[in-house]
């Protein structure tokens, strides 16, 4: 971060990956080599990407701090800024303000079983932690990933899925909402598959992210599986502008998602006023 917190660092797009029809991943390198070398962040932290002339938008840094060749952001096309982001190609310039926000409590997770539950674009924040844990695999017990999307084409990170599936040190389960020709994995809604998988809450941390409706039912499922509120971690999304807790729109009561989040435990969320 610069002394002027509104001042982005210039970065160059080095690669654009078309993940799904409306999601692209962008790999960026800061133009200032020294800054790039010394850039440090923790899984779960976010960044503001600028397309100058269009504006800024917040995305989680979904590459792992253990792999610092580039910073990766996955962008779903919804509004004006994301549309302009989707027009970027390798070589184009963007602004980056990162890292912002608080990361996943990685230290607290060491030595525990980790259960990732991701839905759609919600896989982005999980990817950073998941790849981080793969790179520091010995610090954790069992790692399970349940990742679902509406249909097979809506699954992001297709290039990495075969590897994740093939690994023996993690259990990866994929699912889609309905049957599709050629689909060999699970079919059904994430909360139902989760119940079917029946993971034990014993020494386990569940990390979930996805669309609001999926989160709602996944939380219910986790409660049914006897996970305690403190064992459940999620990340929130809010409209943000400044990213540094000033501009006043991303607060839930006293908590600013850009500053105090986006990572919250379910226990913390329950303490907050209900304004999601």
């Amino acid at each position, binding site marked *: 971060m610069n*002394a002027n917190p509104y001042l982005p660092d210039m970065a160059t797009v080095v690669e654009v990956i078309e993940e799904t029809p409306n999601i692209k991943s962008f790999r960026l390198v800061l133009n200032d080599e020294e800054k790039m070398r010394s850039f440090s962040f923790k899984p779960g932290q976010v960044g503001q990407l600028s397309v100058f*002339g*269009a504006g800024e938008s917040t995305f989680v840094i979904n590459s792992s701090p253990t792999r610092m060749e580039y910073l990766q952001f996955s962008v779903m096309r*919804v509004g004006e800024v994301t549309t302009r982001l989707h027009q970027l190609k390798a070589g184009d310039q963007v602004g980056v303000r990162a890292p912002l926000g608080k990361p996943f409590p990685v230290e607290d997770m060491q030595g525990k079983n980790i259960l990732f539950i991701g839905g759609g674009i919600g896989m982005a924040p999980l990817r950073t932690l998941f790849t981080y844990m793969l790179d520091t695999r010995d610090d954790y017990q069992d790692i399970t990933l349940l990742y679902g999307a509406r249909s097979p084409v809506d699954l992001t990170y297709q290039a990495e899925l075969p590897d994740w599936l093939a690994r023996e040190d993690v259990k990866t389960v994929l699912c889609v909402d309905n049957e599709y020709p050629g689909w060999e994995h699970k079919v059904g809604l994430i909360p139902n598959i989760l119940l079917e998988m029946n993971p034990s809450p014993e020494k386990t941390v569940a990390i979930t992210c996805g669309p609001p409706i999926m989160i709602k039912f996944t939380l219910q499922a986790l409660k049914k599986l006897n996970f305690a509120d403190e064992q459940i971690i999620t990340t929130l999304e809010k409209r943000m502008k400044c990213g540094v807790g000033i*501009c006043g729109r991303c607060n839930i009561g006293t908590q600013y998602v850009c500053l105090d989040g986006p990572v919250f435990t379910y226990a913390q969320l329950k303490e907050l006023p209900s304004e999601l």
Partner: protein
Amino acid sequence: MERFITQDNLQRFAAGLAEKKNVLAPVASGGTTTFRRLRPGMQLDFSRMAVISPKDATFPRNETLLTVQHYPEESGKRMELQEHLPEGEMVVIGCRPCGTRGKLVFDPVYETQAIKDPYYIRRRDGATFITLACARPETTCFCHSVGSGPADEEGSDILLTAVEGGFVAKAVTEKGEQLLGDSLFEDAGAKAEEAAASNASARKLMGEAHDFSSAAEKLLKRFDDMDFWQTQSDKCISCGACTYMCPTCYCFNITDDEAGLVSRRLRTWDNCMSHTFTLEGSGHNPRSTKAHRLKNRMGHKFSYYPDLHGGQIACCGCGRCIKQCPAGVDIRQVVMAAQEYPDER
């Protein structure tokens, strides 16, 4: 240090300052009085509290954060980013204690251990406030209910008190003291006592303060009671008069403009009462109705902010939001209603 200055000399003093610095002062035009940049020939208007607060001085309605120059690909140059930090000094003359205090609410947000907003800090540090104490409260005034008063000096560099024939000027800071060295100021003499008496009388005229002490807790308790908030927000029309007039409202928007190869990142006042404030790209809006938004505005000023910043209420009691609200929403009433609302129904 207390000095005296006649009404005419104050005008002269202000005009003199305006030759060297940006001076912001209440000026009458078009049937109203607003803070304007004092330019030669303009008269100070102290006859009423300016409808807009002086927060422009430290938090202007438009602030260019940065500009970007793009270059054509063939030129081999990459885009160039330029930060636009404010320069120069500003003197605000004739704001009231409440308006001056507004910036105090900004301080713990715009300057923290981790985050320092250089735009605000530079403007604040470059600003001098010559405040006019109030002689009589308006029906909408409640500064005494939020820890202030009609002659509150906090945040001011000089406090003026109207006396017979002119003003007594009290230096509050060193900066103020320096200004009072100007030859237009005379010895205050007995006028100082007249001023003190006037200030005391003003405080007395304000009567009893509202007790907002349980607001922080009660507003949180009301959070999920949408019936309460719907009723309270019935007459609100979701405009921004309250927030833009408010000396303490510090929320802003950041937008980009572009013209050809130049683009600009602009910070403008934003308004938490507007639907678009929290509208997300997906169409989802966590504060989708005016009831949600009024709840957040009240909560922010009287609960969340005090919670985070040592109990300080994020309101200076100037009453502009009440007086200028097209629908007459009374912030005092809403807080009181929340406090008085039975917990169990």
